[in-house]
């Protein structure tokens, strides 16, 4: 193994948590590599305006991500984005990551910050009509549906708030929700119910998408009766929550029933030398500030772990001589 492929620490995920870990570790002269699957910045770059990051009055998520990236690089952190991990071995003192490009990297410690993503329905036709009638972003695509009749899927705050915002464009909106009640805050429910453009189909799921060049119709299945009805529509917006990006960690570290990483107060997972931070850990509040705070703890704990590991090794070498 070439020495240049060995790092003191590897951070998996380059959102605010991963970048913060990179900043702290590199500044402490811990040789660090960040491996990130998507665009550097994670979900933060998807945010038009971050108005609640202390010390910065208001900033676009993309710009904040670029500043964090620059900070990490300035301290000597290596960053690789748009990579894909093929195999990951977290056992033992030397952890190993192999990318689909064939490159392999090793490290003494790993910090896992893979964050989360929007949940998809996973039903037939969803991939085919993405961008051709199916959307996951009201502010991005709302204007394509001016004077059109559309469906919003979901029953949380995002679904109801985005449905109300889409009434600026659409002539009619039908909210399809799987339960007989909404999970959203009462004020969001009331606002949606009071809007004359919004109708509701409860205890039902969208189970298939149909069309040719673009989406024309969906199947809606009533979960109580099992009856399936074809429903003509020009578009479907899907807001059914977030899932942690932890599929690749199954069987490698402890995850809870929702797939979230279980960590202690020092952000350690159940595997020695492996730490977790950010949106993908088991917690209640998911914000840039919380991700950054947890990553700070993870980086300091990892730094300490690496230092101890090296000190013990040196002691053994001295004793052997």
């Amino acid at each position, binding site marked *: 193994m070439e020495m240049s492929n060995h790092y003191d620490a590897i951070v998996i995920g380059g959102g605010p948590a991963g970048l913060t870990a990179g900043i702290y570790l590199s500044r402490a002269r811990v040789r660090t590599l960040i491996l990130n699957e998507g665009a550097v910045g994670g979900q933060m*770059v998807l945010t*038009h305006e971050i108005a609640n990051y202390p010390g910065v009055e208001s900033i676009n998520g993309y710009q904040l991500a670029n500043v964090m990236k620059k900070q990490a690089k300035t301290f000597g952190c290596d960053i690789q984005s748009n990579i894909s991990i093929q195999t990951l071995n977290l056992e033992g003192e030397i952890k190993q990551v192999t990318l689909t490009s064939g490159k392999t990297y090793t490290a003494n410690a790993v910090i896992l910050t893979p964050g989360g993503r929007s949940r998809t329905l996973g039903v037939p036709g969803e991939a085919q009509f*993405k961008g051709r009638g199916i959307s996951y972003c009201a502010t*991005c*695509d709302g204007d*394509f*549906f001016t004077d059109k009749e559309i469906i919003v899927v979901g029953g949380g705050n995002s679904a109801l708030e985005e449905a109300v915002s889409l009434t600026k464009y659409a002539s009619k909106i039908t909210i399809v929700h799987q339960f007989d009640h909404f999970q959203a805050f009462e004020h969001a429910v009331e606002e949606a119910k009071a809007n004359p453009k919004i109708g509701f189909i409860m205890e039902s799921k969208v189970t298939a998408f149909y069309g040719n060049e673009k989406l024309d119709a969906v199947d809606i299945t009533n979960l109580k009766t099992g009856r399936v009805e074809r429903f003509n529509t020009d578009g479907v917006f899907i807001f059914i929550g977030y899932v942690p990006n932890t599929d690749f960690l199954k069987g490698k570290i402890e995850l809870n029933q929702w797939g979230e990483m279980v960590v202690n107060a020092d952000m350690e997972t159940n595997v020695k030398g492996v730490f977790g931070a950010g949106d993908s850990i088991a917690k209640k509040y998911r914000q840039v500030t919380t991700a950054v705070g947890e990553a700070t703890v993870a980086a300091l704990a990892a730094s300490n772990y690496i230092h101890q590991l090296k000190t013990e090794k040196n002691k053994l070498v001295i004793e052997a001589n």
Partner: protein
Amino acid sequence: MLYTNLNHIETAGQHAKVINENENVMVCCGRMGPMCIPVYGIMEDLEDEYSHVKFFDMEFDNPEAHVIRNLPEVRGFMGIPFTIYYKNGKVVKATSSIQTRDQVTSILNQEFGQPVNA
């Protein structure tokens, strides 16, 4: 304004010049939103590796972007970004909405060839 690190196309004239003077061109036409930013990021990453392709972005709400919005190839598109691949000035492929790195590289490899050092 698109504040990416890509080269920007601002006018229809510049668009015509870019696609006619370069053999292989990829243009991502979008906004600074969650579906578009990941595609710009992928393009920024690929710029060095795919030196035989020119990468540009164009703002979707720029009136001059009619050169992309009105292409026959984007009929039925209802999600930004509209990403267009041109070979010798002709559209060879167009995609709607967010794409993964694998989806982008597979189109680049198929339409323009793999990078020489791949």
